[in-house]
């Protein structure tokens, strides 16, 4: 049974109810007390997001300073419930203009109640597309940049659009200048052993799209992925020439993409929602270009001194540069004194996270700055277990670089009025969980 919820609660960190909505009669209104008593006030909090208490099950997620708790008493669809929460939060954010926290909820509670009534009926998720909901749920405080219509007067055919086959785009949009912005954002995840061998490495990328297009356009996107290219050359019966091709391990698409067509023709075709959305996500494990190599040597000299030497090598083109590079090098809790030498950027000791934090604002390609530090420890009398070294973690952003090598080959736009479109493409690679054991 795909029921996702019998009741939804929004609680603050103290456990006060901010919003509650009962969708079904099979759970009592006081269930939130059970959650407070058996989960929030115990060490159980955070040990498991799905819990059974008595005859009810609780699923919860923390988003900023709010707990969203779903209660059910049947064999509900948990995947559906969590996804519903994620999407609902995205929806609220798009209504509030960004933030989702206790204050935002208190300030918009009427709106949230109205939305909750609309996006779920009897525990079954309904349409959660912000673009469509904004057509007829137009509370004060909402300023959709694309709607110029007076509030409080719903668009006459709103209901058709909610339920329509293209349930994510409204009709009759007009833009003077038709533009599409594509952002390819990749996160590199790396786990490297202390000896420098790659234990796990993958790239999760997403293509974010911002569409300002009139009418009901049909779009087709071409990438330099192997399967798509092969299929294309089959159809055209001539090899398409292009440089490097890459192999996508997996792709998932926004609901606007025609999956059946992707399955048979390997083309990404869709009618986009208006404004900003995530078109697709992909994952790559083969042939990843790691932007950075980290070579740490950490020596424990006796019981009170540690010598840290870290060399970071940028392995992308010399003309490119990375921004916001942060390298966090863990040190023991009982660190007393640190002294550094860095060849680039700035470093300091942050006691709150027990790390040496080395920041380099602009990091050019093909360089290798180093940090050498000496750490003095307070000698403790008690023979504690030896220091378990957490991994070195790294943050960065490299514009105009994709770790996967993915490139957009084309983006075609068809609309019956035949207007011209301007397309903009950007690439950026960020650090996902970039960890080097030491």
């Amino acid at each position, binding site marked *: 049974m*795909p029921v996702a919820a019998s009741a939804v609660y929004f609680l603050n960190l103290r456990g006060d109810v901010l919003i509650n909505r*009962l969708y079904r*009669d099979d759970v009592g209104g006081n269930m939130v007390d*059970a959650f407070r008593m*058996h989960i929030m*006030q*115990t*060490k159980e909090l955070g040990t*498991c*997001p*799905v*819990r*059974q208490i*008595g*005859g009810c*099950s609780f699923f919860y*997620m923390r988003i900023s300073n709010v707990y969203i708790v779903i209660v*059910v*008493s049947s064999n*509900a*669809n948990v*995947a*559906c419930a*969590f996804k519903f929460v*994620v999407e609902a939060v995205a929806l609220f954010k798009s209504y509030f203009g960004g933030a989702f926290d206790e204050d935002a909820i*208190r*300030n*918009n*509670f*009427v709106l949230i*109640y109205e939305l909750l009534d609309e996006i779920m*009926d009897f525990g*079954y*998720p309904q*349409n959660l597309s912000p673009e469509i909901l904004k057509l007829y749920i137009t509370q*004060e*405080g909402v*300023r959709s940049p694309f709607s110029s219509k007076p509030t*409080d007067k*719903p668009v006459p055919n709103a*209901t*058709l659009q*909610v*339920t*329509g*086959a293209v*349930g994510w785009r409204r009709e009759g949009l007009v833009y003077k200048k038709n533009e599409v912005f594509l952002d390819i954002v990749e996160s590199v*995840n790396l786990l490297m052993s202390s000896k420098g061998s790659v*234990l*796990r490495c993958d790239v999760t990328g997403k293509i974010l799209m911002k569409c300002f297009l009139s009418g009901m356009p049909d779009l087709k996107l071409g990438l330099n992925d192997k399967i798509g290219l092969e299929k294309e050359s089959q159809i055209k019966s001539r090899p398409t020439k292009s440089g490097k091709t890459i192999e996508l391990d997996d*792709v*998932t698409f926004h*609901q606007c993409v025609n*999956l059946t067509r992707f*399955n048979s023709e390997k083309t990404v075709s869709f009618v986009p929602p208006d404004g900003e959305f995530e078109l697709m*996500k992909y*994952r790559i494990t083969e042939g990843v270009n790691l932007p950075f190599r980290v070579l740490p040597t950490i020596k424990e000299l006796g019981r009170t001194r540690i010598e840290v030497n870290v060399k970071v090598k940028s392995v992308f083109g010399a003309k490119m540069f990375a921004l916001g590079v942060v390298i966090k090098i863990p040190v023991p809790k009982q660190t007393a004194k640190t002294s550094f030498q860095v060849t680039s950027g700035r470093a300091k000791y942050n006691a709150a996270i027990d790390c040496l934090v080395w920041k380099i604002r602009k990091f050019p390609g093909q360089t290798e700055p180093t940090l050498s530090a000496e750490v003095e420890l307070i000698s403790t009398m008690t023979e504690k*277990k*030896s220091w378990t070294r*957490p991994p070195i973690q790294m943050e960065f952003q490299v514009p105009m670089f994709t770790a996967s090598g993915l490139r957009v080959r084309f983006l075609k736009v068809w609309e019956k009025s035949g207007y011209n479109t301007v397309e903009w493409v950007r690439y950026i690679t960020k650090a996902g969980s970039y960890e080097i054991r030491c």
Partner: protein
Amino acid sequence: MSGHDSKYFSTTKKGEIPELKEELNSQYKDKRKDAVKKVIAAMTVGKDVSSLFTDVVNCMQTENLELKKLVYLYLINYAKSQPDLAILAVNTFVKDSQDPNPLIRALAVRTMGCIRVDKITEYLCDPLQRCLKDDDPYVRKTAAICVAKLYDINAELVEDRGFLESLKDLISDNNPMVVANAVAALAEIQENSNRPIFEMTSHTLTKLLTALNECTEWGQVFILDALSRYKAADAREAENIVERVTPRLQHANCAVVLSAVKMILQQMELITSTDVVRNLCKKMAPPLVTLLSAEPEIQYVALRNINLIVQRRPTILAHEIKVFFCKYNDPIYVKMEKLEIMIKLASDRNIDQVLLEFKEYATEVDVDFVRKAVRAIGRCAIKLERAAERCITVLLELIKIKVNYVVQEAIIVIKDIFRRYPNTYESIIATLCESLDTLDEPEAKASMIWIIGEYAERIDNADELLESFLESFPEEPAHVQLQLLTATVKLFLKKPTEGPQQMIQVVLNNATVETDNPDLRDRAYIYWRLLSTDPEAAKDVVLAEKPVISDDSNLLDSSLLDELLANIATLSSVYHKPPEAFVTRVKTSSPRPEDEEYGSETGNSESAADSAATGASPPPTSSGSVPYAAQRQPVPAPASPAAPVPDLLGDLIGLDNSAIVPVDQPAAPAGPPLPVLLPASTGQGLQISAQLTRRDGQIFYSILFENNTQVPLDGFMIQFNKNTFGLAAAGPLQVPQIQPGTSAGTLLPMVTFQNMSQGPPSSLLQVAVKNNQQPVWYFNDKIPLHVFFTEDGRMERANFLETWRSLPDSNEITKDFPGIVVGNVEATLDRLAATNMFFIAKRKHANQDVFYFSAKIPRGIPFLIELTTVVNTPGVKCAIKTPSPESAPLFFEAVETLLKD
């Protein structure tokens, strides 16, 4: 930009309600709207604003949609408490359901369905009928769900008014969202009914598969879930279905992906071509891996499901083990699940990598995770013969780190490795013996003692080592004592010299005379007799060859696995328990006349019997009497209501598991007074009353302390002696300082199977309580068996009969209660049901009434009960059948108390 609604929360002047009343009746629209917002704000924070019902409802007739929605929201919350006034709203509802604006029509029907007041329900039918045929798809999709709501309130009405037919027509609707909601509604109705309502034919299948391409992501989930019940006729059809569903694997919505996986796995069972199956496995792997980049909560759900999937189809993810490597910042629940899957996927090909990972984890901070990592190494050793040596090497390296809990955990798994590969790795015993002094956990001690006994002939100083344990023999927990006893006997048989001979005397003396543990005593006597009559026979018994073990921990049996796989993405797949194990809701379907004759084997049935017979959820499994394999699982949620959290937290229950019990909770002292167990005269002024109770599937010890001394008492602690059910406190006792002349009550959560005494079942519970001011107080309590009756003890009638027949007659035990009178049958049944003794059927025999009940205690032991009595006449005869007849005396005690009340 955001709103400023928070101001509505801040009206806390005196006379708030009258003020609101005035504002609600204001002539200005804006003021009324603001007032309703304030009412909703008050409702949200839990204030009772039901007294404003009439005033709020008066605001209902408005053109303003926002205001209307707020009033409706209010109605949903309070109509039930004001059923008579709710009728005032009906007119507006009916009018709104004919409004030209489809949003308002839909809103009216949607809201009416949420108001569970009979009078309103009557008026709902006509608008619903209209809306199901509305021109606007938005109204139709709302009406479709509304039929399910109405069915939940009054199933008969839905069937009589022909709503089911209208709903079925909507499956052919041209709007995909209407189709999806109709499917969801029908699937739910079917689940709650025992008649075929929504049958999946190949015709519906085709229609739904077409709709699948067009509907919203959620609609796809509804349809896929409904379709997964479809049984394809042959392999060809199954292949066709799978082909249509496979594209869904690329969807960004994790629920769509999991439902598609569920559907594909179901159909794969029918597909015979190995190529097709291999190809499908290849296609499913990447989407499953992608789920691991979602939010941690979703990852958790995915991992629990992947755990099931790899048990059925290990090849799917055989090459993907790397994606399950733990990230340093993964939440603990994700790490634990990843570890479990890594063990399942470990093979000779990847074991080196896996071991490196496990070793890394074993040096992390979280103790439970570290323990699990160490145990994982051991399990890999048992699973992969060729890798066993490498696993042992890693374990030895870990032992050298000398972290106490790592060493203990390692010794426990090494014992299992010895069992699996006898006479292979004994050379490492010397290393193990070095850590002897650090062992303080019973399981590790018992394991080490077992190793010493088993290999006594190869350990030169085995007698010295064992002797060091013997000193503390009387204080050790039961299973360490048993292990010591056996190990000493082994030592003696292997080295019948003077030292061991003395030791055996000491041990046998300790284990027979000094102990009150019957199990230990029995074993000691057997050994004693064996040794004194025929030492050769003793050798044959004690030193017999042991069967080789395998790693079957956390493997589910095949039929349970089938059921769980059919429930992918649902709670059942997360708990690894069949739905009926945790869904307690009784179906609401009203008994139909034809059902009355159904199963009249035991005589004329009553309606309660019907709901009991139809009550259990669909596919009837044997779960009634079979202990769930899931109980052995590290299920993060409490496995069954009464069982303790098994072993996610390692074995230190109580270390990380301490439930906090608020002392000011009124629940404890309320209700009937607790029996006094330690009168003030004995307790030097401290009086203790206590009783075991069961609430919401959890056992509590309800205790009341009364301080009649002259000094404040504080620092209360409690301890329970070993008992038949292994009852122990789940956490420390939380009692504040009690001032002279006052009292404090608390509900102490209890766990079971912690500290079990052996021997015949006994209801004796010995309790010790101490505080900082007084000596330790000991008192005895009785364990009423009915606190163990679990919520899932309800049996279907067929199941009952089958179980009754399957048990041999020797398991039937009867007892008479001459003094007990059953007066009010209804009340008695209610009372028994409240203690989870479920009424199944009733029949008349001469002038006597015979009642049948079922109950279940943890570990899945059922009780089938027959009560015979003449109403209002003294004398009740109770006959029970159970696989565990030794607990019958306890059961009769419980029944007696229950009936006496």
